[in-house]
């Protein structure tokens, strides 16, 4: 029975002898270039001068110190979430709910900021950050528990928890945590000056969260390459049967992966609310938790790559805002570019393991 109507194409995918290291690094660059080319086409299609639009999207945001600050500012939560997620992905743990863990981090850290900042005095900021980490980790503990105890997919559970987390935040801000002088808006009182994250320099908004993130990136690299726990997670993701053979506990790996990514996302969330936002409000993240998934992949699941990818993604956000103002394009153009980038990356990734061969099908019987 012929495989009709599918006919084998005139090109063939040939498996490489060994994964191409060159392609691993080139793939994100190729994907980025392809995204740019597509962006060119999109702007042209929308009736905007493409080169101007591309300039406005990718170059203009960085023209000032303030702009660079914004770049670092947005890259921080993206990288924090991305680092945690990447660790999970290498261990075959798919935490899709970073956005929810980010929200819980904001809630817990914000809660401490609202109610205990004066009592804690100088310890306030560290405690707030720790509370944020704990909140995110606790939210990630739910899918961890459900996966290890009840074999339930962490993808769907963590995702459902995103919606629940956002509703929880809305509930708190509509009721007990609402600013009585806030004209009825669902937001909390502004946080005291003393517990806002100190800025890197004046004239821009990036805070010490950025160097903190870099430190965590280094820590993440250390974890994966030097710690046995990191090795165990890597094996767990690449060859689960080998992990079982070696006696590496799958449970432990799942918990570790989720706790780390949850805590990182929680930290990202709390840094946003005691950073640029300065209060708790319903709108604390333009989808950082989801964009971080793209950051993780484009960054090749490697800390250095993730930091770079976070900067690129951050630029996409800034670019979106820039063309929204300058060219009256919807801000959603950012989401569009993000999706396109990921698609191109996945396609380019193919060439890490396979080579393209344009050859006519050899006419011999199958062996």
């Amino acid at each position, binding site marked *: 029975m012929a495989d009709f109507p599918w006919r084998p194409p005139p090109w063939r995918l040939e498996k490489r002898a060994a994964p191409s290291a060159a392609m691993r690094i080139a793939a994100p660059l190729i994907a980025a270039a392809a995204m740019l080319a597509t962006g060119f086409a999109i702007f042209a299609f929308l009736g905007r001068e493409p080169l101007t639009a591309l300039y406005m999207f990718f170059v203009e945001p960085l023209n000032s110190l303030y702009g660079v600050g914004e770049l670092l500012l947005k890259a921080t939560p993206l990288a924090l979430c991305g680092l945690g997620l990447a660790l999970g992905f290498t261990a075959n743990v798919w935490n899709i709910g970073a956005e929810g863990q980010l929200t819980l981090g904001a809630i817990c850290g914000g809660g401490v900021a609202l109610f205990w900042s004066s009592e804690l005095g100088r310890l306030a900021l560290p405690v707030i950050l720790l509370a944020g980490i704990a909140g995110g980790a606790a939210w990630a503990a739910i899918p961890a528990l459900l996966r290890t105890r009840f074999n339930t997919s962490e993808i769907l559970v963590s995702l459902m928890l995103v919606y629940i987390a956002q509703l929880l935040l809305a509930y708190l801000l509509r009721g007990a945590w609402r600013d009585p002088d806030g004209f009825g808006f669902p937001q909390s009182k502004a946080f005291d000056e003393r517990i806002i994250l100190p800025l890197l320099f004046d004239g821009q908004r990036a805070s010490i969260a950025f160097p903190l993130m870099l430190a965590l990136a280094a820590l993440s690299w250390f974890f994966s390459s*030097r710690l*046995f726990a990191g090795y165990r997670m890597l094996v767990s993701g690449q*060859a689960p049967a*080998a992990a079982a*053979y070696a*006696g590496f506990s799958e449970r432990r790996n799942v918990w570790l992966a989720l706790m780390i990514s949850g805590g990182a996302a929680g930290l990202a969330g709390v840094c946003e609310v005691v950073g640029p936002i300065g209060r708790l409000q319903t709108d604390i993240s333009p989808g950082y938790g989801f964009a971080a998934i793209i950051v993780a992949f484009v960054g090749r699941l490697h800390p250095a790559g993730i930091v770079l990818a976070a900067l690129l993604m951050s630029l996409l956000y800034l670019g979106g805002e820039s063309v929204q103002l300058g060219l009256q394009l919807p801000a959603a153009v950012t989401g569009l570019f993000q999706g396109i980038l990921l698609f191109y990356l996945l396609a380019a990734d193919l060439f890490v393991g396979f080579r393209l061969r344009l050859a006519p099908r050899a006419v011999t019987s199958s062996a």
Partner: protein
Amino acid sequence: MNERPLAPRLVLRGITKRYPTTLANDNVDLRVGVGEIHALMGENGAGKSTLMKIVYGVTRPDAGSIEWEGSTVGIHSPAEARRLGVGMVFQHFALFETLSVAENIALALDERSTPAALAPRIRAVAERYGLPVDPQRLVHSMSVGERQRVEIVRCLLQSPKLLIMDEPTSVLTPQAVLQLFGTLRRLAGEGMSILYISHKLDEIRALCDSATVLRAGRVSGTVRPREESNASLARLMVGSDLDDQPPQPRQPGEVRLELNGYSMVPRDPFGTALRQIDLDVRSGEIVGIAGVSGNGQKELLAALSGEMIGPHSGSISLCGRRIDHLGAAHRRAFGLGFVPEERLGRGAVPAMSLSENALLTGARAGMVRHGLVRHRVARASARATIAAFKVKCGSEQSAAERLSGGNLQKFIVGREIRLAPKVMLVAQPTWGVDVGAAQLIHQSLIGLRDGGSAVLVISEELDELFTICDRIAVLTAGRLSAPQPRSQLTIEAVGLLMAGATQEVAHG
């Protein structure tokens, strides 16, 4: 036997097939008459499956000719083979577990019919040949013997003239074997030719009219099995004397591994349950467990290694300590070593380097300290393993998936042996491994034994077990026979135990 003045059903002349690394078939002649049950015998790697791939159209020979009922033919595809009248029942059934018998057969037939339309035809064929099969039953609820009947019925529905059976009894109980033989005799009586591929001497002697024996790609003899003895057949298959340099027997020491009445039902609904396993392995001895896969080997290994811990009765002890509930890493800490059946994906992580793979089981051998990986120690250890076991690779940084099967197996065996385990488990130590590597692996296992370790080898290769083991037991359908000293056993006797054969088989 029928002596009809008809052209023989199938004649192969001078069939030769070369692969990049081996000469699989070297000038092979074969002749199967009408209504004849002809055995194709040989050990693993002798060239049987290649020859069958040629007859069934999966592969083309490099030289030689095929004659079908007197005329020369070329068989270019399985569909063409089926059109000629060749039916094949594979060793590993191509059946979908979650579908019914009728649905499976509907998918496998060349004609497009619905399961509903096939059901009455299935029942008719089943009844005619005494192969009870219910078209509505789902395959996953069927025993192996029943599944084989489905495959046979599927073949029979296409009215073949030559039926090829590939190692049909490897997973059957004695009763199922009897039933199968009855069916095959019936079919032959009606004129169907049967090509029976096997290495089970007693069955062949009981069932087959004639036999072609392959050894290392060549025909080593064409005989009438009933006029031969098991010993003479075995000699044709294996060649040199079986007892080739038996290792020096040692005085075994204290019991290092002990199973007492161990029974376990696996979580996988398609697995084999272990029943009342009693076994002890002493220091300084190698115990072998024979048996074809599907009889509980996987489950026994996983229970011993710590990869499958679940509800069970009975106990497992390592050097006197109960290890039933300990995980794999823990058991390693107490001195258990293990070479698994699957190399890539289980014994080694394919994309990782050899030195990274050394870390898999070497954590307690100084490669990890205070939770930190000491890459230098791992690399040195990998290098030492590579040198000691003559592993052909680029370096310790080569990825595991780039090594040949034999070399990777040498590395894994070497890695485990160098950890000086008190008890060593080995599964299929030389499966898919070239002769040189196989020898080295055997020697190293004997060396391990001489150093005082207790070694347990589970293998489908009787030869191998007879080469290195001091005692041999047989695992059939989850039950273990009492191990007996090798000197008191013969290949035939063990083969009998594996087939669970009784007197009835021998007398047809």
